[in-house]
């Protein structure tokens, strides 16, 4: 056969591509269930029309509090609203005993990264969606995938395994910060963002 060599070579390439693009991500990430379901859309939708910062608050000193503590949920959900299972579990397992929900955070950065929400959101007036996407209108939580090597969430790299964001808000790695700062002529040293 004339092209026998090329065929085997191409077969190897194709096999590698298939593995690399489709099997590798499955092997690299481990999916972990969030402790309980959450529907952002119900909160931010027309009926309640809450804004992000009503729950994702800032502390007095400007620190971003991140995911609200269960006491914040209890402000409205001290007793079950509605009859869904999730609601029942929320009240019984967390709110009544006052136990914090062990959320897994999609955007959790390494300990040596410093990011100030106040600088970007309060002073810089950036909309939350610019980094977090339309998370606030989701009805279910996306699956939480842990990188088996680095231990960080898949969302830090971006959902797309290529590292090329399919949507502008995908990925939260350092180059994303650096590019955005460079676009705005912000010149910084390392300590500006590393703690």
């Amino acid at each position: 056969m004339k092209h026998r060599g090329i065929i085997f070579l191409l077969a190897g390439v194709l096999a590698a591509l298939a593995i690399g693009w489709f099997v590798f991500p499955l092997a690299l990430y481990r999916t972990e269930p969030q402790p309980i379901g959450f529907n952002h859309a119900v909160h931010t939708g027309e009926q309640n029309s809450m804004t992000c910062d009503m729950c994702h608050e800032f502390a007095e000193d400007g620190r971003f509090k991140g995911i609200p503590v269960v006491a914040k949920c209890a402000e409205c959900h001290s007793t079950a609203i509605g009859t869904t299972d999730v609601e029942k579990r929320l009240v019984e397992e967390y709110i009544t005993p006052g136990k914090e929900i062990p959320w897994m955070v999609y955007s959790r950065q390494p300990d040596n990264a410093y990011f100030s929400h106040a600088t970007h959101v309060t002073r810089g007036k950036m909309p939350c969606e610019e980094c977090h996407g339309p998370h606030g209108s989701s009805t279910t939580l996306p699956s939480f995938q842990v990188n088996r090597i680095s231990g960080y969430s898949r969302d830090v790299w971006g959902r797309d395994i290529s590292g090329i964001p399919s949507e502008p808000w995908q990925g939260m790695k350092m180059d994303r910060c650096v590019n955005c700062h460079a676009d705005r002529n912000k010149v910084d040293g390392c300590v500006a963002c590393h703690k």
Partner: protein
Amino acid sequence: MKLTRRDVLRFAGGGLIGTLFTPIPWKLLDDTAIWTQNWAWLPKLPRGPISTRFSHCTLCPAGCTLRARCCNGVPVGLTGVPNLATKNGVLCAAGFASHHMPYHPLRLNGPRAYTGKDDGSMLIPVTMDATVEALGRKLRAAASATSGGSVAILDQRPGRALSRAYQEFLSGFQGGQYLVSPSSEDGTLRALRNLSATQCPPLGYDFENARTVLSFGAPLLDGWGVPEQMYRLFSDRSASGRKLIQIESSKSRTARAAASWLPVAPGTEAVLALGLANVIVREGLYSKDAERRIKDFPRYRDLVLRYHPHPVAALAGVDPDVLVDTARAIASSPSIVVSGADPAAGPADQTTEILVAGLNLLVGNVGRKGGIVYRRDVPGTDGPGYAETALHQVPDHSIAALIMDGMESGATFPHSLLKRKLVEDGGTVVLLSPYLSGHSAVADYLVPTASPWETWEEVPAPPGATSASFSLAVPLLPGREYSVDAYTFLKSLSKASGVNLEDHGSGESLLRRRAEMIAASKRGMVYAADGSEGKPASSFANGEAIWQSCADGGTWVDDAADASSKPEFNILGQLTDADLARSARMQQAAGSLTLVPFSTRAALSGATISPVMSKVFQESDLRMNGGTVLLNPKTALLFGLKNEDRASVRTKNGLLIARVLCDPTVKPGLLHAAVGPLPNGTPVADEEQSAGVLSLCTIQDDGSWRFTEATIEKV
């Protein structure tokens, strides 16, 4: 078609090429890099809500106000809260890491007992009930006439409501003795009260208004009194015309900051005090009022007139002109003459203490603004109370059972001193402490109490304060199930030993009761930790309101005491001519050195400070680990020693292998030997022996151990 080896290789080669166009190598590289930058075994930072709480430090008697920055309610950083009204709130090195103490590796996690008294004795876990029962029996036996001794409690933090409970407990035993540490911080005040012929109210040093402070070795700028006040008043030489004169053999941290420094020959302090008195008497600079109040003034005058400044200066190794100037300085304006030393050096000898106290009386400092002023006790404890004796001043072999409360922090003592005070067969010693501290080695029973930050603790006025005060150390962390509340323990002991003790509930209710008494007395002011203006205690509705204010970091400070009291004194009452003759005794033999132990307050052993104190003790030479000796380079040369040598230090009490460091600030002929923590991770047994240097010290008849003749040899 037959698969050949070449096909497989081609396939693999293709795979390899293909892989380069997949994320595999690049993503793995990236993830591995991230992994190596954040090793999984590195501690993860706490995340959570940040809050602030005020509290007080309990590591030493100064009791500084502090602000704790908390993450998830756990303190993660401390800051001193300077407060001019309470003269408080500058943290020392140890204080900055006091929030590490609940996690100390030397924590005692259950009651322990030694199996015997010999060297092979082992520490074994026991149950609390068994401990209480055994102790009850021992206390009853100790109190019986046949034991030859009595029951005693050594309270390392006197002045608390708990201290009062200890005194009540002891009153149930025949000859029960309430003891305090041989701390030198209030040595002069204690000596003054001992000299009084009539009732003398409690005393305090009015440093704020003093013009001249003459310190006989008191390390005012190195862990003495309240750091906030000491630094504010004395760290700037040029400030406010206040003059600090330091009498100290070596050029210590305090001596170098003082306006003048007299490098006295060790052991000649008493003679120097007489020389100073001589100038004051001869030049007629003494207070006429004092002349009336010193009942044995003629005898005292005759004595001091024998000590002319020139021979005294020659003996003490100081400039006679400086001596005369010093005498004039303390006589010409409100002054304080204070004796002291760091905790390891212990109290001055009795003669020096008396003569230093005498100088204060001579120039009329006692009861004068800017001198030594009267104060009152905390409400509810006023009036004739219980006798309080320093451990080194009780008769030898008079203690059959001893309960020691609190870890050594502001004070320590050689274990040989304790052995001398215990009955001949050793008696029984119980140590209440959260840690296996340096004193654990002498205890028969160890009872774990709560660590700082885990329980309400009272912070009474520091030694030498001008007024009584009350503040609280706040529990920010849950207590451990194995730790015992000292008051509850005392109650169970009283039950087991058949002694009557009024039940006030728990340690916390004891403190709340004190707040009630303060409210009822309507005395003093309450100052909030935020530095806002104080509010009179009388404006608080009840004790609960005062408690609340103190629980938020506030401090109650008593009003000034009535200054009209005129107690009378006998300076030489207890001094014999033999004492005076001995006071110039430290003329060392040729070829020997004078060993003087030294330490840093609050850092007397590895168990009383955070392991991070290694920064100053182990990872730099700023402070000395236990077993380091400092020598003047000339002295070192004389003994053939150089920096970092190992040498054996020998006294008549034993031998110690020490690390030698040359230090030009040490007076030639002196051997400064460090009592302090050992390197982190040192086995517990060695840590317990960290008072090693103190075991070399000779205990004098008066219980002091400051100077010991020693030799040193390179090993």
